[in-house]
């Protein structure tokens, strides 16, 4: 194992449930020290991917390496270095919060009691309370504390802000930023709260029907993914959908809305050649890009099915 090895590396990872692929030949590479956001619509395979990394699910095919170790053969060693917050929090309802901490402390080699106590104070988690008495939001926070307690090198967070009010969400993000400040740590976060993701992620991957359709640094993604609203005086050029970088052309009233993936200057240069053409470049948020990709792929799929 070398430090240059990515935190997560999957090759041809496939998981089939009842004949349907939930993850389909996934080639994922998450560099160490990054905050990687795994995005995608419901049922895209995000949770399945995270569970495969922890060996909670057995892969049908493919290879998984987590922190330089085989996630299937060395799963215990991997989990020693990984913190995990599940999408739905299910603990022992009659057990007290401190008893859960006690169990985890006895199982992890590097359990940080001081940090856990501090986060419990910040999140107002009563250590003597029974888990079943906690609200949904408090359960989410408890899961997060349990995930960061072992000082993991890799933090897997599946919808970490579920059931949290905006104040708590901010606190959670702050916690994650603090976690990242602690050295060569990697976070993989799956969330539908795209504003939150935009605040902390430095790399984004889009999953759709179990396939990774995009994986790029967030800054690059936001820089390259643009929309251009164009008004042609006459009819638009027939070869417009084939221009470099053009992913989709949609009609918006009398205008055309061109979705671009890079090649902005080149497209603008071509537009300028048309006399009387009016256009404006629109920036996109991560949410816009997410919707754009998800919708675009849906259209492509439907077109493929119709063919």
């Amino acid at each position, binding site marked *: 194992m070398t430090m240059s090895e990515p935190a997560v590396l999957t090759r041809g990872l496939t998981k089939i449930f009842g004949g349907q692929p939930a993850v389909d030949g996934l080639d994922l590479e998450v560099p160490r020290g990054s905050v990687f956001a795994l995005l995608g619509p419901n049922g895209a395979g995000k949770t399945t991917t995270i*569970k495969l990394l*922890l060996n*909670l*699910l*057995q892969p049908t095919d493919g290879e998984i390496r987590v922190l330089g170790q085989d996630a299937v053969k060395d*799963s*215990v*060693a991997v*989990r*020693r270095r990984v913190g*995990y917050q*599940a999408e*739905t929090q*299910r*603990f*022992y*309802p009659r*057990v007290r919060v401190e008893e859960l901490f006690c*169990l*985890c402390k*006895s*199982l*992890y*080699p590097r359990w940080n009691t001081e940090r856990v106590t501090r986060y419990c104070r910040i999140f107002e988690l009563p250590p003597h309370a029974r888990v079943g008495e906690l609200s949904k939001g408090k359960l989410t926070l408890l899961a997060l504390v349990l995930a960061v307690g072992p000082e993991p090198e890799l933090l897997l967070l599946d919808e970490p802000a579920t059931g949290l009010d905006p104040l708590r969400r901010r606190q959670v993000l702050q916690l994650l930023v603090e976690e990242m400040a602690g050295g060569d740590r990697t976070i993989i976060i799956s969330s539908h709260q795209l504003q939150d993701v935009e605040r902390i992620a430095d790399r984004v991957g889009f999953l759709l029907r179990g396939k990774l359709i995009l994986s790029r640094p967030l800054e690059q993604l936001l820089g390259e993914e643009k929309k251009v609203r164009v008004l042609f005086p006459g009819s638009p050029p027939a070869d417009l959908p084939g221009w470099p970088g053009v992913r989709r052309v949609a009609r918006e009233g009398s205008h055309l809305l061109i979705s671009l993936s890079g090649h902005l200057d080149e497209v603008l240069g071509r537009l300028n050649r048309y006399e009387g053409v009016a256009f404006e470049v629109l920036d996109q948020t991560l949410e816009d890009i997410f919707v754009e990709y998800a919708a675009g792929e849906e259209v492509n799929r439907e077109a493929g099915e119709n063919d």
Partner: protein
Amino acid sequence: MISRPLLRWEIRRLRWWYYGVLLFWLGNFIFTLCLIVPGQPVPVHWEHVDFLWFGMFWAIFWGGGLFVGKFRDGTMEFLLARPVSRREVYHSIVLAGGIPIVFLVILPSLFALTLPPWKTSHLFPGLLALNLLESVWLIAVFLLSACVYLFTGNSNRRYARFIEASFIGAAVAVLIELQKTNLPQLIQAHPLASLLLSLTAGCLFYGLGRWRFERMDIRTNSG
């Protein structure tokens, strides 16, 4: 092989069941002692303090419930997301669940050891051996039950509940039949064959259950 923190955790989780077993046994023990006429050298017939049948039902229902309960409430995922192997989890659940069943059966004869000889029946040494044999049988039944539920309980397969219900029905029917033929006497008549058979069955179900548990997907069932 065995994670001590995990085993402690499982035993702690089941402590109320342990207390229940103890209480049940204690009640029967006091009842039996009440039968002794004070001052009379009448032996207590420990063979009548027999929890085999109660233990059988316990083994059938608890063997599966321990595993399936964890899948249904999602705590299995919580456990297996920690740095413990599936084998360690399997062993801790089986041990924590199996210990009280064994104790339930052999405790009467163990307790009889503490009584003066004139109070215990002449069958006593044979009874302890018989109880031990019975407890091996119970563990085999417990492991069979765990095995059946591991193959059906963590799936949303259409017929999983039907298979489970059939298993319980069949097991209860077999028990009733065995009761008619008087199982303890049968075991006593063929102790070696009984031991070999129960050990073989126990090992087989242990191996099958472990094989399944180490390869299954850990998914939380909704129902």
